[in-house]
C-alpha cells in the first residue's frame, strides 16, 4: 500500500516535470441576472464537448477558466483582460449577448488570442470589422429573423404585426424579418426593455386583426408575452412567429402555453445525425435537461477547437497555421454539416421549429420544413478577408 502511494507520487512528479504543452481556454458567459439561464446552457454544452474529448482539446492538457460577464460590458472587459494577461489564454470562448461581445472583441483579437463566439453574432464583426482571430459556431444575429420573414412570406401571410423590445437588437431583429417579408406590416410596436405586462399590446393586436404576429422578445418578458398571448386565446386564431423567444430554454416554463408557436433555428434536438444523437443523449444524462441551440453551438465550439488544434499537431504558437486550421477544421457538427463563410461565421441550413416531443415523449423544440438552405449572412460581402 505504502509502496503504491510512493509510486503514484513519483509518477505525479514525473508527469509534472515533463514539458507538457498546455492549452488555456477562457470561457465567458452570463451566469447572473435575467440572462443566467442562457449562460448555463452555453457552459454545459461546452463542458460536454470537453468531456467527449477526455478533457483534452486537441489532445493537449486543457486548462479551462470560466468567468461571468454579468451581462455588463464593463465587467466583461475587466474579466477578459484578466483572462488575457493573467491566464494568458489561447482562446476566449462563449459570449451570450452581442453587447458583451462588442466590448471584448477588440482587446481579445488584438492580444493575439482567438475569440470563438458560441452565440452572439452582431453585424459589425460579420462585416467590415471581421477578423482572422474571430470565429463563430452560431450565426449572424439577423439570420434567424430573416428565416422567419421568409417563413411568413412562404406561408402567404399578407398582414403581419411586429413586436420587439425598444433597443438596438429589437430594431435590427425586425429589420432582419422585413428583409424577406414582402407583405404588409400592419403595425410595429416597440415595448420597454424588461416589460412584464403585454395586455395593452395584445389588445392592439386584436384590434389590428393581422394574419400573423412576429415577435422578438428574449428572456423573461418573452415567457410573459407567450403566456399572456395564449391566455387571450390568440395562439389558435393568429399564429405567433418569434425568434429567440420560444426555444428549449423557455419551453419548460411555458408548458401548454407553447402549443402552436413557430420559430426558426439552424439546429434542433431531433436533428437526425449520429453526432447529434450522442450529444443530446449524453447531455440529458449528464445535466438532466434538454439542450438548446445555445448548448449545441457551445458543444460545436469545443469540437472546432479540438479539431483545429489536433490538425496543427498541438502547436499553438504559430497563429497563422492555427487560423488556417480553424478555417479548414473538419468535425462532426451536431447540425449535420459544418461550413464557414469567408467572415468565419457558419453557413447554415435554417428550419422552422415548433414545440413538440422527442422520441421518449419529453417536450422539446422539433424541426419542421427547411426555410433556407446554405444560408450565409448578408454582411459577409463587407468583410475584406479572402481565403
Amino acid at each position: 500500500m505504502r509502496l503504491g502511494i510512493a509510486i503514484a507520487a513519483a509518477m505525479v512528479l514525473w508527469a509534472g516535470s515533463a514539458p507538457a504543452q498546455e492549452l488555456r481556454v477562457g470561457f465567458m458567459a452570463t451566469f447572473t441576472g435575467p440572462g443566467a439561464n442562457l449562460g448555463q446552457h452555453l457552459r454545459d454544452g461546452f463542458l460536454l464537448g470537453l468531456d467527449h474529448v477526455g478533457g483534452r482539446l486537441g489532445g493537449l492538457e486543457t486548462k479551462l477558466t470560466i468567468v461571468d460577464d454579468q451581462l455588463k460590458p464593463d465587467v466583461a472587459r475587466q474579466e477578459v483582460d484578466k483572462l488575457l494577461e493573467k491566464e494568458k489564454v489561447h482562446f476566449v470562448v462563449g459570449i451570450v449577448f452581442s453587447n458583451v461581445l462588442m466590448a471584448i472583441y477588440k482587446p481579445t483579437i488584438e492580444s493575439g488570442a482567438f475569440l470563438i463566439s458560441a452565440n452572439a453574432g452582431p453585424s459589425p464583426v460579420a462585416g467590415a470589422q471581421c477578423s482572422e482571430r474571430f470565429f463563430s459556431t452560431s450565426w449572424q444575429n439577423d439570420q434567424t429573423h430573416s428565416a422567419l420573414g421568409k417563413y411568413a412570406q412562404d406561408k402567404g401571410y399578407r398582414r403581419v404585426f411586429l413586436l420587439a423590445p425598444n433597443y438596438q437588437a429589437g430594431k435590427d431583429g425586425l429589420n432582419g424579418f422585413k428583409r424577406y417579408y414582402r407583405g404588409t406590416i400592419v403595425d410595429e410596436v416597440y415595448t420597454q426593455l424588461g416589460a412584464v405586462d403585454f395586455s395593452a399590446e395584445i389588445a392592439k393586436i386584436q384590434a389590428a386583426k393581422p394574419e400573423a404576429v412576429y415577435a422578438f422578445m428574449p428572456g423573461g418578458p418573452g415567457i410573459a408575452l407567450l403566456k399572456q398571448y395564449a391566455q387571450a386565446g390568440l395562439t389558435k386564431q393568429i399564429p405567433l412567429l418569434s425568434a429567440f423567444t420560444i426555444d428549449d430554454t423557455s419551453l419548460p416554463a411555458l408548458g401548454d402555453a407553447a402549443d402552436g408557436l413557430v420559430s426558426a433555428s439552424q439546429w434542433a434536438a431531433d436533428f437526425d445525425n449520429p453526432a447529434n444523437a450522442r450529444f443530446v443523449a449524453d447531455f440529458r444524462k449528464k445535466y438532466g435537461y434538454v439542450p438548446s441551440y445555445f448548448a449545441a453551438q457551445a458543444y460545436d465550439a469545443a469540437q472546432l477547437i479540438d479539431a483545429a488544434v489536433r490538425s496543427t499537431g498541438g502547436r499553438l504558437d504559430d497563429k497563422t497555421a492555427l487560423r488556417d486550421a480553424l478555417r479548414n477544421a473538419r468535425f462532426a457538427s451536431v447540425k449535420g454539416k459544418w461550413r464557414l463563410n469567408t467572415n468565419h461565421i457558419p453557413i447554415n441550413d435554417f428550419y422552422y421549429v415548433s414545440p413538440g416531443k422527442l422520441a421518449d415523449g419529453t417536450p422539446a423544440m422539433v424541426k419542421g420544413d427547411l426555410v433556407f438552405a446554405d444560408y450565409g449572412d448578408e454582411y459577409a460581402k463587407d468583410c475584406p478577408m479572402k481565403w
Partner: protein
Amino acid sequence: MDPLLLLVQLLNGVQLGLLLFLVAAGLTLVFGILDVINLAHGVLYMVGAYAAAVVLVRSGHFALAVLAGPLVALGAGLALDRLVLRFVYDRDHLDQVLATFGVLIFVNELVRVLFGPAALPFPLPAGFEWSVRLPGGATYPAWRLAIIAAGAILAFLLFWVLTRTRAGMLVRAAATDPAMLEMLGVDVRRLFLLVLGAGAALAGFAGAMAGPIVAVQPGMGDQILILAFVVIVTGGTGSVQGALLGSLLVGLADTLGRSFLTDMLRLALPPAAANEVGPALASMLIYLVMAGVLLARPRGLMPVRRAAR
C-alpha cells in the same frame, strides 16, 4: 380612436394598477409607518411567486398555491425583520437602502442557486382557461378578471381594517406620531411587526396571482419594485388610499401610453420618427406623471400628515 379598444385598454390599465397596488400597499405602510426604505420588498413578491409555483406543481391545487404565496412571504418578511431590518430601524435611509439592497442581491442569488436560473412553470389554474368575449372581437382572459376581483376585494378589506378596526386605528396613529403612541402604552414594536408581516403577505399574494402571467424567475421582483416606488411616491408615502390612487394612475398611464401614444404621434410626425419617439415617451410616461404630481403636490397625492420627529 376605437372606443372599444379604449375600453379594453382602460380595463387593462385598472388590472395592472390593482396588481401594482398589492405590492405597493405593503411598501407604503412599511415606508410610511416604520420609516424604512425596504428594497427587499420586491424579493417578497418573488418569494410568494416561487412558493406558489412549487406548491402548484407538487400538489396541483391552485387554492393551496395561492395560500402558500402569502404565507411563505410572511415568514420571509418576519425573518427579514429578525435578521436585518431591526438593526437598521433607527438608522438613516442610506443605511437601510444599503442593507436591504444587499438582501435583494443575496436572495435573488439564493433563489438561483436553489431553483436554477430558468423560469419555473406556472400554469393557469384549472377553471380559468377561458376568456370573456367582448363585442368587436376582443377577448379578456378570465385570470385577468380574477386579478381585478382579488385586488379590489383586498383593497376594500385593507381600508376596512385601517378605518374601522382598533388595529387599523393604531396603525394610522403610528403613521402620524409613533412616539406619542408609545407613550400611551402601545407596543409600537409589535405593531411594526404586524405592519411588516401584512405588507409581506400582500406582496407574496401579488406574486402568486401574477405567477400565471409573468415569468417566475430570479430577479422578477426588481422590475415591480421600481414601479411600486413610483406608485407610493406619486400617491404619497404612508397612505394606503394614496397607494391605490397612485397604482391606478400609474397602471392607466402606462397602459394608455403604450397603447395610443405612438399612434397619436403618427398624426403629427412621420412614421419613422413616431416609432422612434413614441415607445421612448411611453416608457417614460409614468415618471413624467410622477414628476407632474410632485410638482403640484410635493408630498404626493394623499400624503399622511405626520408629527415632527
